[in-house]
């Protein structure tokens, strides 16, 4: 709870900075503030408390995921320093929106009431719509914002419909009450229908097949930093929320529901990977790769009671490598009007450090040891085989092989092509973010127990 209040306070503070004309200091102070909030969250780690008639429930699950979100936001805010260089007049708006987005994200993993959950998802989504369209003069950005808004509001509507049906069936918005009632033998048909609708809405947010159509266009059109946010923070938030929704409301997901999850998971990884193979725009490629990673993360829904730790680990590994990759993309594609692979030609020669970081990030996503991505897949496979879905794991393995194809396309472009032009300047913050993110990723790979045991 304190986390949430502190984050919102920080967001308001960011807006005030504008008034007092302190734009230069906004990024460092926000980062310090977020570090403080992170400390606060960690200090509350072991407490389980509920606030305001169960509106907010702080648990281990919520505080670990909140910490992850805060860390990701710190990276994203830091990257903003360089990215919004030419938009100084609006920088406090952008930063404040990101902080509010974080507040929505935290609310989404610590809700105890479906109303609070909906509030959280709307705060997050509206912030994302604005950020997607934030490059006002750019037609593509406007298109992306519009598309995302239209599709997103449909999803919100479906979620709301689902919540209403659940209320109709159970007579309550409180998840503990719903969970107790759902144990009874006679369940009104509205309840499973409501759950299905909720799931559909959330699958839209995580961009799982067949609800992924918005992702490539929106990722491509949005400003690169917003894309980074969507593909790391927003995806992870949505996945954690879906996991929490299903695990707190009906402890035992039915068999037929699991079959659907298996199919969606298989379809997401396969389609995402196959489409990614054909992309020349790096943002689009990462959008499709994100679809396939969503498919991997959906595997955690098959063993709801035990897989919180592996979801957290996968989410951390995936989002940290995403941050590292996007900080390199931000550097390479600054002042370019597209993000085609061509821009990456010869990066291995002109900037070996960033090329090595991007390579590591992609290797982590492809699941090569010793990066965290490998262990993330390993624990996931382990859990899924334990739950009895060997076929799904084999599909996932085949997909890991396919994914190497397009990740390596980018790596090859960096090392075997001749550089087309020199890039000037060494933005320290981008370097710092990229290095820290990839070091954290490798550290998680060397000590997986650190995260895996948190939610064991």
């Amino acid at each position, binding site marked *: 709870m304190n986390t949430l209040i502190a984050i919102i306070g920080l967001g308001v503070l960011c807006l005030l900075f504008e008034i007092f004309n302190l734009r230069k200091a906004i990024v460092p102070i926000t980062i310090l503030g977020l570090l403080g909030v992170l400390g606060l969250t960690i200090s509350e780690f072991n407490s389980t408390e509920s606030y305001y008639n169960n509106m907010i429930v702080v648990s281990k699950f919520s505080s670990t995921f909140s910490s992850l979100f805060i860390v990701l936001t710190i990276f994203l805010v830091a990257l903003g320093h360089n990215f919004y260089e030419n938009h100084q007049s609006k920088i406090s708006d952008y930063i404040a929106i990101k902080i509010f987005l974080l507040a929505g994200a935290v609310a989404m993993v610590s809700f105890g009431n479906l109303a609070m959950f909906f509030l959280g998802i709307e705060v997050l989504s509206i912030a994302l719509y604005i950020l997607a369209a934030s490059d006002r003069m750019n037609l593509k950005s406007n298109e992306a914002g519009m598309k995302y808004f239209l599709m997103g509001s449909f999803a919100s509507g479906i979620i709301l419909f689902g919540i209403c049906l659940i209320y109709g069936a159970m007579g309550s918005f409180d998840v503990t009450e719903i969970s107790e009632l759902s144990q009874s033998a006679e369940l009104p048909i509205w309840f499973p229908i409501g759950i299905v609708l909720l799931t559909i809405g959330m699958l839209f947010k995580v961009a799982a097949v067949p609800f992924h159509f918005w992702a490539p266009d929106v990722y491509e059109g949005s400003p690169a930093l917003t894309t980074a946010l969507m593909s790391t923070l927003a995806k992870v938030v949505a996945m954690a929320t879906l996991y929490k929704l299903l695990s707190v409301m009906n402890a035992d997901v039915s068999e037929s529901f699991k079959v659907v999850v298996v199919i969606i998971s298989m379809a997401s990884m396969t389609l995402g990977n196959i489409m990614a193979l054909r992309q020349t725009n790096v943002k689009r490629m990462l959008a499709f790769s994100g679809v396939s990673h969503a498919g991997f993360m959906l595997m955690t829904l098959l063993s709801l009671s035990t897989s919180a*730790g592996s979801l957290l680990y996968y989410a951390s590994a995936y989002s940290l490598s995403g941050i590292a990759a996007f900080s390199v993309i931000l550097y390479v594609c600054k002042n370019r009007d597209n993000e085609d692979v061509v821009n990456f030609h010869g990066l*291995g020669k002109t900037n*070996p450090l960033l090329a090595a970081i991007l390579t590591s990030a992609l*290797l982590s996503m492809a699941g*090569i*040891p*010793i990066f965290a991505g*490998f*262990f993330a897949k*390993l*624990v996931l*496979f*382990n859990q899924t*085989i*334990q739950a009895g879905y*060997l076929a799904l*794991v*084999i599909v996932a*393995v085949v997909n*890991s*092989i396919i994914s*190497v*194809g397009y990740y*390596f396309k980018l790596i*090859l472009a960096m*090392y*075997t092509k001749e550089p087309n032009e020199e890039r000037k300047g060494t933005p320290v913050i981008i370097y710092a973010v990229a290095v820290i993110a990839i070091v954290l990723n490798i550290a998680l790979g060397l000590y*997986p*127990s650190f995260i*895996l*045991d948190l939610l*064991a």
Partner: protein
Amino acid sequence: MNVSLILIILLVGAFATFLAGDKLASKVALFFGLAAAGASIVLLNHYNLGENISFINQWITQPNISFALKADGLSMAMLLLNTVLTPIIIFSSFGNDYKNSKSFYALILFMSFAMAGTFLASDGLLYYIFWELSLIPIYFIALIWGNGDTEDRKKAVVKFFIYTLAGSLFMLVAFVYMYQKAGSLLLEDLYKLNLTANEQLWIFLAFFLAYAIKIPLIPFHTWQANVYQKAPTVGTMLLSGIMLKMGLYSVIRWQLPLAPLAAKEYMYIFIGLGIAGVIYGSIVALKQKDLKKLLAYSSLAHVGLIAAGTYTLTLDGLRGAVLQMIAHGFVVVGLFYAAEIIFRRYETRAIAEMGGIRTQSPKFTSMFLILVLASVALPTTFNFIGEFTVLYSLSQINIWFAILGGTTIILGAYYMLKMFQHAMLGETNSKVFADVTINEGITLVIIIGVLFFFGMYPKPITDLITPSLEEILTQINRIN
């Protein structure tokens, strides 16, 4: 003192080489390579005195994974092959200039680190990690410092990477499956598993895919010749000298003892695949015009025979296979080095453009001849002992296997001597061929020395490996 020391030396060496800068890189790398070789000889001494040099430590609690390095005779023999060949390979590159050489030499040491880890690891996951890790440096070595057209090279190297990765991922699934049964991936816990024949078959096949691609066995060999040709000679030496031995070693260490029922049931098929590789490799080698490609196919033939030896599941077969692995490691590094020496002078690998080197450079010619004869298993060379033992074990299973496998010697002698004749003899070449430099001479003499020494006195290696092979055989022959 325990075996983790070697890994530390090699890893630190990789970083030190990278930090040393382009000028010093090769010397620093050589220093650390020699240090690792020295340390492994010291460790071998400790091991022979009966000390415990294994290392085990809990790494991940959930899932239960240990950082376990176990050194027995087999591992020590393979470790020595790795750590002795690494400095030789580094030293062999001293005549060449590489762009960005700090990364180049750091990658070589890093690869040696990963391969040493593969030979030592006794926890399934740790083993898998080292196994995969060794793939990354060779990928970059072949990609960045290779020769020939960039596009062709890219295709060959990416094919190699995806192929090997694909194979090993199925091995990972097999490991995860066994983890569910055993609750741990330590080798001794996996040995205790009682798997049904059906489970063993699937596990055997998953492992087989990984190893058959790495070794490579027919029909998974298609990546090999192209990558050998495109990679820089150092990369080719690492690949053929050490890396493919990882696959053969893993067959003995992991595949056979974990799935013995399947190995026994389908023994003829797998021996057959190995023999098919022998014949196919030899016949294709006959037709090669490129020296490196010829050596690549001859290597395919030799490893096919080694693999056939391991799948006989007899002590002779396994022992012969291990001996031949070591012998082949040295001889193939020597041969590729000889090809490199010719390339340095003539800038070509086409056999047709060579010839008449003997009159200009008698020293090099005699050393090359010795290597050629060693590779066709001339008695008194190390290869003879290995190849002979393997053929003997094959004849115990079925005499036809031995006869067909023996073609590797006959056909091998034919294509190797034909190549030698075309490349070294004949009329004096108009192009000047300077005789070997001191560095080149030292490298070749060391390799030849090793081949002759163990050819006449293989007892130290046989004594080292036999107890651990017997242990593995009891595991294979246990009653399920």
